């Protein structure tokens, strides 16, 4: 593995709430290499969005990034930068696309203004030059009639166009890293497909690294080259996309795969259509919900929902075991592979 572009080291984020301190992200370490797309998956509340927001330091009180956490980019720890320096990173070196295209744009400012603003705060561009860059960025993301659009307000655009606008806004300065937080969740299926194709295309052309946050394994299968799975504030499994879909080691990952419609990694012949294959009758759900972040279960945080759990799981928090050079899993099963034999078929990782 080459020198990572972005490196998250032991990230811990806590929230002070009425119910106690919530450890939303609890020791996540993650590397993002230049030009790769890393999918970060997990159920809602597992901490993936918080992780993403931490990278840009967008978290607001009561959220707090604990000391000891590090996020390295360009040889600097972002968490140690003064706010002013951090501002020059946001939007220029690292950009972010959010999941709510309906609300992520300011309703009272024109599209052009909102995109040009990025150029104007980071570069000493004239009003006109910034505006031209904005129009060009709109064109780049495939918005037809970009000149007109630039003069319009968000409410005059469709959801898909708005998401393209957000993408244009993120990419206008060609950032090294793009964090896409559930970029297509709020869109309908055909628009999703178009956008994902666009994202893949732009990533290839601009050569940037993408941290793709999603709960949708189908999206990951289509776009990502590597996958990291989060549960309860921790990274539970990390592997190249083919490897993960073929040989998930963590029961949670397996559960996710079980719960999703039929999946295949991107390079299969099915493309995006693959997710619509049959097998609906075989869908399963992971029982229970993600526990509240104020009270993670002891031992393995997944043990109370895990059908493979045994007494060790309740007692002892599993470390992150290296399955091979590129595959890690946080599960006692990785240390006690013999137990796997006793498990029900559904959890052994074979996916039809």
């Amino acid at each position, binding site marked *: 593995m080459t020198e990572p572009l972005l490196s998250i080291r032991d990230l811990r984020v806590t929230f002070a709430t009425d119910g106690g301190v919530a450890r939303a992200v609890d020791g996540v370490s993650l590397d993002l290499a230049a030009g790769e797309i890393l999918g970060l998956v997990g159920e809602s509340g597992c901490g993936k969005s918080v992780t993403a927001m931490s990278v840009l330091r967008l978290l607001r009180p009561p959220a707090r990034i604990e000391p000891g956490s590090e996020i390295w980019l360009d040889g600097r720890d972002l968490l140690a930068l003064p706010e002013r320096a951090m501002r020059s990173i946001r939007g220029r070196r690292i950009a972010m696309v959010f999941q709510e295209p309906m609300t992520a744009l300011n309703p009272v400012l024109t599209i052009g203004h909102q995109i040009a603003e990025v150029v104007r705060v980071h570069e000493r561009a004239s009003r006109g030059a910034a505006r031209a860059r904005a129009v060009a960025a709109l064109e780049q993301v495939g918005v037809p009639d970009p000149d007109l659009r630039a003069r319009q307000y968000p409410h005059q655009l469709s959801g898909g166009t708005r998401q393209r606008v957000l993408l244009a806004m993120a990419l206008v300065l060609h950032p090294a890293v793009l964090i896409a937080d559930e970029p297509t969740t709020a869109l309908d299926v055909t628009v999703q497909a178009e956008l994902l194709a666009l994202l893949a295309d732009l990533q290839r052309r601009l050569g940037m690294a993408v941290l793709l946050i999603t709960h949708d394994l189908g999206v990951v299968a289509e776009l990502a080259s590597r996958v990291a799975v989060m549960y309860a504030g921790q990274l539970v499994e990390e592997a190249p996309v083919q490897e993960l879909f073929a040989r998930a080691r963590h029961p949670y990952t397996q559960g996710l795969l079980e719960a999703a419609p039929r999946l295949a990694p991107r390079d299969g012949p099915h493309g995006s259509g693959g997710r619509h294959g049959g097998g609906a009758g075989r869908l399963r759900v*992971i029982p229970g919900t993600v*526990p*509240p972040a104020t009270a993670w279960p002891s031992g393995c945080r997944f043990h109370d929902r895990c059908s493979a759990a045994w007494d060790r799981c309740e007692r002892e928090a599993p470390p992150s075991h290296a399955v091979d050079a590129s595959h890690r899993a946080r599960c006692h099963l990785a240390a006690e592979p013999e137990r796997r034999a006793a498990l029900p078929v559904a959890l052994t990782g074979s996916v039809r």
Partner: protein
Amino acid sequence: MTVTRPSERGGAVWVPVGPRDAAPPERERRRPAYGPWRALWRRYRRDQGAVVGLAVLATIAAIIIAAPLLAAYPPDVPLDIIALKSQPPSWLHPLGTDPVSRDVLSRVLYGGRVSLAIAVLAALTAATVGTLYGAIAGYAGGAVDAIMMRVTDACLSIPRVLLLLTVAALWGRLSIGGLVLVLGFTGWFGVSRIVRGEVLALRDREWAIAARALGAGATRTLLRHILPNVASPIIVAIALGIGNVILLEAGLSFFGVGVQPPQASWGTIMQDGADQVRALWWLTVFPGLAIVTTVMAVHAVADGLRRAADPRSGYGARP
């Protein structure tokens, strides 16, 4: 400015997924069942400013209730019209004396009773009238609603002070009861709009329809089912109304419309020194401070109530 907002009363939607986890998690299970008022109080208590406001208000209430014990002099009787007239603050008369040699502190203490009594009664009157009016308009809807609201618009467009002066002029002289009525009957427009908005929003909720389906009449549906759900904005309106009436009573006294001499209210004490502010400043400054403190406390309490009842709402208009 009618605020329609998602109701908090529905409670958290907690739907367990899957068969294994039928019971709620630990934290949820431990929470005792609160009534709506307990819940309101719990949220209220968290608001420091509101708690301070309530404490101040309670202290003021205690002081004016205990006025006969605290006041060193009779409030309405001249002490010595030659030797003790218009004395600036001193040890014997901490807030000075007025032009007819009455002790200002004693008058402020007793005057608070009058001012607050008027304020509370007038605010209650306004709330009652406004609630009924708004409820009828909101429940009736349609043309009735439109006409009724047009009327309140018209009334709201007359500055209240002018309206009050005009109406007060009708009487020629106002007893305390008259003052309460005049202040009450010119203060209900805002309340009626709030209530009307809420009722309009609530009358077509499932439970209201269900109540009607079960044969409850309009009055019963309104009184037993809908209005209790509008209670918190009404309470907030009453609290704000109290503050406003205290200010208005003082304002009316400024124009010579107030309680009858020799009785004191905070407004009339100020009025006694109004054209001699320069020489007799203590007559203006001290009752004014009493008013500001009280109204501030009332507003803090109203703010707290509003935040407790509806954490996301903005601030209402000052009439």
